[in-house]
């Protein structure tokens, strides 16, 4: 039948595209078990690079930093973004449109422009502050901590590019929400705070969750913004890999990518299995 041939063709095409997407990753994974230190010459099976990875303080430190920054930034951005979205929703259009445009800037702008602008801003602010501290120290013998680019600025940068994604996911849900529900809740005796927490938030929950998920993905995947705002002593995983590629590349990178990939795969498979089971349970009911 023509349709089944078309179907076969389209499946084949999809299969090829998926192969294209996954082949390099699979190669990375395979060579992470390579006994030699090349990505091209296979010298036998070995777990050597995994043990070396766990002893490599720089890479493990950066994995830790990446996860910590991404989690914190997601949590903060989700909370702040939800409240901001509610605030924007309640605003008059006259205020909302320009503010939303400004809000979209970090998303629309190229990463490098955001990174460079934040870097200039932080450095100028810190230069001023450190100058002030030096003056205090010399004139009044008071000291205050000096500020440098580091984990704090990295976190600030991540939060600031995550919030727009959260807002963008929450706003449509707010619009779709039936306003009558809130009035109904108040008619039934809730204060507006209670109405808010018990009615509005559950309605927009899917938006909050998808916003948080996107924020986390963007944070973990980020390289350019972190590169410009993390300073010298802090590095995320992407930054460590970048500096490793400028030197001798060790298959430790393969090991860490295998672990990351494996963790994410397990996670997504679990979630999908649970969702599928949930759907089946609903069908049975």
């Amino acid at each position: 039948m023509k349709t089944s041939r078309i179907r076969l063709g389209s499946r084949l095409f999809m299969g090829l595209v998926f192969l294209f997407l996954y082949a390099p990753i699979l190669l990375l994974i395979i060579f992470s078990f390579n006994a030699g230190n090349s990505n091209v010459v296979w010298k036998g099976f070995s777990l050597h690079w995994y043990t070396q990875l766990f002893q490599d303080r720089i890479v493990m430190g950066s994995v830790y930093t990446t996860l910590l920054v991404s989690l914190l930034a997601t949590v903060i951005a989700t909370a702040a973004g939800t409240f901001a979205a509610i605030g924007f929703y309640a605003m008059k259009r006259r205020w909302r449109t320009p503010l939303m445009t400004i809000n979209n800037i970090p998303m629309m702008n190229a990463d490098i422009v955001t990174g460079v602008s934040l870097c200039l801003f932080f450095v100028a602010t810190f230069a001023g502050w450190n100058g002030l501290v030096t003056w205090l120290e010399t004139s009044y013998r008071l000291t205050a901590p000096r500020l440098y680019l580091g984990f704090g600025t990295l976190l600030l940068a991540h939060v600031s590019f995550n919030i727009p994604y959260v807002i963008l996911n929450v706003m449509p849900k707010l619009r779709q929400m039936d306003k009558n529900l809130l009035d109904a809740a108040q008619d039934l005796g809730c204060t507006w705070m209670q109405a808010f927490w018990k009615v509005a938030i559950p309605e927009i929950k899917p938006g909050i969750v998808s916003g948080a998920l996107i924020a986390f993905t963007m944070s973990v995947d980020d390289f350019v913004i972190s590169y410009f705002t993390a300073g010298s002593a802090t590095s995320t995983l992407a930054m460590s890999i970048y500096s490793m590629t400028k030197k001798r590349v060790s298959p430790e990178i393969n090991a860490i990518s295998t672990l990351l990939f494996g963790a994410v795969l397990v996670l997504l498979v679990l979630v999908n299995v649970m969702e599928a089971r949930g759907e089946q349970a609903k069908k049975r009911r």
Partner: protein
Amino acid sequence: MKKMLALALACALTVGGMTGCAMKDDPAVSGSGSADTQTSGRVVNVCSWGEYIDTDLISQFETQTGIKVNYQTAESNEALYSVLKNGGANYDVIVPSDYMISQLIEEDMLAELDYDNIPNFAKIGDRFKNLSYDPENKYTVPYSWGTLGIIYNASMVDEEITSWNAMFDPKYAGEVLLINNSRDALGIALMSLGYSVNTTDEGQIQEAFQKLADATGAGVYQAKVMDEVFQKMEGGNAAMAAYYAGDYLTMLENNEDLRYVIPQEGSNWFVDAMCVLKDSQHKTEAEEWINFICSTEASLANMDYIGYASPNEEALDQYPAYYEEQYGEPLDQEQYEIMAAPQSILDRCESYLVLPAETRTLYNDLWIQLGI
């Protein structure tokens, strides 16, 4: 969706917790990410170059003194300068090359050292003290020294390479690696034309730039590299590169077809020296680190690992015996001379002097133009 987020958080927290625990056992690592304010624990922030230290020395220092070491690397002197000028870095010890040190001294970015805290400084050979970049020796302690030369793969190149002109020869199109910093790249072109690497004559510099641009246009260069050169040369992915003597010896261990030559036109010899930044908050720790590094034991271990000669005269003398003890075979004289070039070779080499500001701007502009 909700479950996805919950699971994602749980998973990430577990992994984060595991790595956090794994790292707590390692006494050298603590919140290395929270370096944006001063901590009261003893810490020293070092910025050096890639493949430039025996990492065991870092752990040795940490256990001996209890000072935590944050060891970072930069790509080239110019990149280091950008990072320092940009203001975001809070390094204590940096290891720039001679000409960059002069520039930093000119711009008043270095702190004067208290040599009473660095007794091992006495072991540094006199020929490495009071050099042109730091004539009164107030700011620096030398770390290593060596030469720049051509590294080539004898199995991929038919003839013996003797001149810098090989790096511009279309015969080797696609097989040559250009060094990725303006000073060395333009320096190579200048030397191939017979000019001094320190010339400020704009005409000569433009001529050198033109030679590089022509070669780039002819497709001679496969890529512009610094430390990526290790992978490329060892893997036989390129036939020729200009790089430093110590790194050649490291590469030789992984590919025996490689050769090193100082071309007939002469070359550059350099000294990398440790200095402390002026607004460093950990000067005492920095000086302790410097003192540790130039001790003879540390120098011997470092020389062996990185392949660069140490300026510590005692270490230089003891190295052949040290090598024999470590590896059970005598040190190859040719390799030793590549590592610690004899005076006859040094006489044919020029060292970089700091260039005046207009020339530096010219170099920067030409360098960007070359990339186009």
